[in-house]
């Protein structure tokens, strides 16, 4: 076989394989089928070359050249057709196919297109007939129209559809390489001795286009071209050097050494085995320059995901994540949604914008199709891919998902899984530098990051809960330490005062004031008596305070039986004691009411924890009433009557406690975020010193109970707690 046949043979096989891969991988796509046919024509062209070069005679070569042109005629036609289908240009292809058939007729039936063959040093090559120049015009015409159409589309898609934009760039780049590299192949048809190297370029072109069509997340075009370029360069060397060496040494050694061809063969083998290493080395060298920015950002993401576990404050962690991602990936916005098990929704927990502000939804329902889709996929969802790579018939859900995500300008959604639960997801916009889609590598890294984040989030949530439980415990312990001694001291003082006062009052009773005639003395004694009675009353109020505090201090965390109404009454007193400093600014004195039957059974529970629960609920109610009173007085009604009512009832083995207030209530947003860690409606930190509702919920759940909130803004709020009366197995702390 003629060694010059190797290049076209290799090209032919490569193009045939690439076409087959495309055909099999993306079945059903019209554009891809046509491009597969294009590959087939190219394969035909090159196999024709290979056969023609190795032909024993000009006559045989002339037969093969017909095969060559059978392929060549259809290359521009299929390409033109492919481009119009790919760009959704609706037009009839009848005329150009007819022209193609006419050329074929001339090719097979006459010598107008192919006249004869030339004989060059590499073998026989087609000799152009007088029609050949018209064929070339036809070819130029179709190619230029296709190129112009692609360029126009590229301009239109800028910033609209990064993935498709990138794909068109691939097609353009591939086509340019292919055509400019292979037009010279027509020179020998006109008698110019140039060995056709088109195979290298055309194969590169086909490889680039096929890659962009089958690869979901194609790499950046310049990287792909660099890689393909390095590949072509290395393998051209591998193939060409042995020939040159062979050509150079042949005259000198062939006479003395009959197996002279072993030398170039050996060189070829050595080069071929060294090729991959040279290729990888060059690739790394070029890419580290080209992709320096990308490597840097990947490194930054890796660092972030390594360090995330160090953060114990959830808000700081989430804030850092969104901020960092926007900065590193150069995005327009990033948002994190986290699952809230109380409301069973995914709630917007953190977001960061660079520049323009985009209104993201505050929450996603757990049965939302986006959530369901990512739950099923367990992989990043790229909005554009939903429409680009979906099966031919889009389901209505995916259509809706696509339009919703596009409307929000969401480019990618990255799920965050923890033990197979979707604990949340990341939402990413497209990049500020438009038209660069995320590569597979980016997305892999983001998946790692988001799963690492799931751990970090769990860690931070656990830590925060632990800290606040600890704080609460140490508060409780400090109170338990101090309250008995302090109240003893205080009660003794009170006892001294009250006994002195009572003794004095007793003496005054036995003393006949009226017997005195001096009016001034009479009045003074009367005043004194009133003052003493007042002091005596106050003393007993003081005693109630110490007793309420003592009860609080002595409440046991361990589960035991106790009377819930008594506990609630005492808790209310505590709220009033701690709040009497500030007082209800603009409201009348609060109405407090416990509604329950006398036959309320004792509950088996942790007195201390439930006291915390009710204390915080009533304390919040107090604030809510205060806020409402403020608004009412601004509206000209200074006498708002605040009310807190606790209703206790029994349903089978469950005590239902409803804590209702007529305060300001909760806005929808506050209501939604109510049980998320460290959420507070209170602006100032000193006010929000109570337990978060999320800790309250934990306390209730330790009792195997539930808590729910029902509220309407400006009307008030009702918290409903359901607690089992008895417990099979108590697990108090």
């Amino acid at each position, binding site marked *: 076989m003629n060694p010059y046949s190797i290049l076209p043979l290799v090209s032919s096989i490569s193009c045939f394989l690439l076409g087959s891969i495309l055909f099999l991988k993306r079945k059903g796509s019209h554009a891809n089928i046509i491009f597969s046919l294009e590959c087939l024509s190219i394969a035909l062209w090159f196999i024709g070359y290979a056969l023609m070069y190795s032909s024993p005679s000009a006559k045989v070569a002339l037969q093969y050249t017909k095969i060559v042109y059978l392929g060549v005629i259809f290359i521009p036609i299929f390409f033109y057709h492919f481009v119009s289908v790919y760009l959704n240009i609706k037009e009839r292809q009848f005329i150009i196919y007819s022209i193609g058939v006419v050329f074929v007729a001339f090719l097979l039936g006459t010598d107008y297109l192919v006249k004869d063959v030339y004989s060059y040093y590499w073998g026989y090559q087609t000799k152009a007939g007088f029609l050949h120049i018209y064929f070339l015009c036809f070819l130029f015409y179709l190619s230029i129209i296709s190129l112009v159409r692609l360029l126009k589309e590229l301009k239109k898609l800028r910033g609209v559809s990064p993935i498709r934009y990138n794909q068109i760039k691939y097609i353009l780049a591939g086509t340019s390489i292919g055509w400019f590299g292979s037009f010279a192949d027509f020179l020998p048809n006109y008698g110019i001795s140039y060995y056709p190297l088109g195979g290298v370029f055309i194969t590169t072109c086909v490889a680039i286009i096929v890659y962009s069509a089958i690869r979901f997340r194609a790499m950046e075009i310049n990287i792909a071209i660099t890689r393909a370029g390095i590949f072509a360069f290395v393998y051209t060397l591998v193939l060409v050097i042995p020939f040159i060496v062979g050509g150079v040494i042949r005259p000198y050694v062939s006479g003395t050494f009959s197996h002279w061809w072993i030398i170039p063969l050996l060189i070829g083998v050595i080069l071929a085995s060294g090729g991959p290493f040279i290729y990888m080395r060059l690739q790394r060298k070029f890419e580290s320059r080209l992709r320096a920015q990308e490597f840097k950002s990947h490194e930054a993401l890796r660092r972030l995901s390594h360090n995330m576990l160090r953060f114990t404050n959830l808000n700081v962690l989430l804030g850092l994540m969104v901020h960092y991602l926007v900065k590193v990936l150069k995005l327009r916005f990033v948002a994190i949604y986290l699952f809230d098990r109380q409301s069973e929704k995914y709630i917007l927990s953190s977001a960061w914008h660079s520049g323009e502000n985009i209104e993201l939804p505050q929450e996603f329902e757990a049965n939302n199709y986006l959530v369901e889709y990512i739950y099923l996929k367990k992989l990043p969802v790229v909005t554009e891919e939903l429409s680009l790579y979906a099966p031919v018939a889009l389901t209505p859900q995916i259509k809706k998902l696509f339009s919703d995500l596009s409307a929000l300008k969401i480019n990618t959604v990255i799920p965050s899984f923890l033990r197979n639960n979707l604990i949340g997801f990341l939402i990413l916009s497209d990049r500020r530098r438009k038209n660069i889609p995320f590569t597979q590598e980016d997305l892999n890294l983001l998946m790692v990051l988001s799963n690492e984040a799931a751990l970090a989030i769990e860690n931070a949530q656990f830590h925060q809960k632990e800290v606040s439980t600890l704080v609460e415990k140490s508060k409780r312990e400090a109170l338990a330490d101090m309250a008995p001694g302090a109240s003893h001291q205080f009660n003794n003082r009170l*006892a*001294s005062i*009250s*006994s002195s006062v*009572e*003794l004095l009052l007793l003496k005054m009773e036995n003393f006949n004031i009226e017997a005195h005639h001096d009016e001034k003395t009479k009045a003074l004694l009367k005043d004194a008596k009133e003052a003493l009675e007042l002091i005596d009353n106050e003393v007993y109020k003081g*005693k109630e305070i110490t*007793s309420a505090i003592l009860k609080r201090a002595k409440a046991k965390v361990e589960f035991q039986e106790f009377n819930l109404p008594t506990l609630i009454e005492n808790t209310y007193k505590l709220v009033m004691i701690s709040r009497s400093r500030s007082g209800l600014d603009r409201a009348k004195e609060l109405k407090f009411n416990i509604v329950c039957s006398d036959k309320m059974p004792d509950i088996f529970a942790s007195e201390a924890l439930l006291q915390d629960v009710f204390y915080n609920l009533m304390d919040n109610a107090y604030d809510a009433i205060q806020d409402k009173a403020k608004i009412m007085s601004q509206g000209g009604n200074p006498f708002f009557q605040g009310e807190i009512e606790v209703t206790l009832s029994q349903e089978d083995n469950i005590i239902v406690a409803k804590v209702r207030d007529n305060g300001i209530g909760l806005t929808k947003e506050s209501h939604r975020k109510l049980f998320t860690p460290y959420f507070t409606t209170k602006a100032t930190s000193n006010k929000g010193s109570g337990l978060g509702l999320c800790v309250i919920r934990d306390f209730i759940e330790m009792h195997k109970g539930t808590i729910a909130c029902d509220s309407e803004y400006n009307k008030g709020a009702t918290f409903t707690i359901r607690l089992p009366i008895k417990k099979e197995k108590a697990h108090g702390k």
Partner: protein
Amino acid sequence: MESNAGRKVLLIDDEETLLKNIGDFLKVMGYSVFTSSNSTDGLELLRNHSPDLLLLDLHLKEGLTGMQVLKAAKMLKPDLKVIVLSGFGEEEDTKNSCISLGASAFLGKPTSLKSLSETIKNLLEAK
């Protein structure tokens, strides 16, 4: 008031003011009153005068604790009526353990003199 004459009440409390005030009050009510601000003197008075009733503060600064005094007093004089006063509030646990040691009543401080005198009267009349 005369009916109280001859009834002897012993008062042990480390609060001097309270000691004096309750003492004065009980004297006015007609009782013979002995007071002590510590357990040692208190038990001495108990031995020497054999009072009918003991008013005992649960928390004493020095010597024995209120509980210990209560035990000792009941040993010395089993039929002695004891009213325990506590500055720690009227806590059920403490109250129950005092009653089980033989105390007749348990009052949280501050308590009104009137209710105190009523309690004393009821206890002594029940005798």
